């Protein structure tokens, strides 16, 4: 069972400037979906973008808090960068 706020923070810390949303897909707290927009994604392949997100939360995958993580990524661009 993962702490969603902590997972969001881990991703945001690893990718400064990112917009991060982590949702619990099943209500069980261990099948999560991370929706991430980050300036660091610019010019990276999707699999590299996913690697960056996964790497940020790897400790919580290793310790079993997250059983499954699905990831959606998009480059952060334009006015969206200013919405926070």
């Amino acid at each position, binding site marked *: 069972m993962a702490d969603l706020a902590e997972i969001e923070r881990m991703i945001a810390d690893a990718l400064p400037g990112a917009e991060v949303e982590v949702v619990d897909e099943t209500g069980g707290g261990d099948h999560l979906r991370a929706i991430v927009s980050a300036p660091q994604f610019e010019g990276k392949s*999707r*699999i590299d973008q*996913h*690697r960056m997100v996964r790497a940020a939360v790897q400790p919580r995958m290793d310790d079993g808090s997250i059983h499954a993580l*699905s*990831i*959606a990524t998009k480059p952060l661009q334009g006015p969206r960068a200013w919405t926070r």
Partner: protein
Amino acid sequence: MPANPELKQKVEEVLQENRVLLFMKGTPEQPQCGFSMRVVGVLEQMGTEYGAIDVLPILDPLREVTAEISDWQTFPQLYVNGELVGGCDIVEEMFENGELAELFGVEQPKAAASTSQPEATPDPQQSPPLQVDGT
């Protein structure tokens, strides 16, 4: 744990031999996992030839191999030209936005909705299971 070198070499050979290669749980005819089934569904709709390897008989040794060659340990994994494209999320996203058709060099299927059923599709080339000797 380092990957079994013999298995790693076999995986590299299979990757060279198959332009489009799917590592999946189960077989295209009988997928054993919903994510693998969804990627098979995309490939069938694309009508592209692909090789498929059932990871279940050698799951852990294969994880160690893919961790080394592509820094990815979960299955399914779709490779094109020896490069990891992604798992189910990425494949479905690239299918829906047409990037996958571009990568394969085929026309985007007209009904690119994941609910549509494929019509005539080529038989997938089922690779023989990978074996690890001496374990």
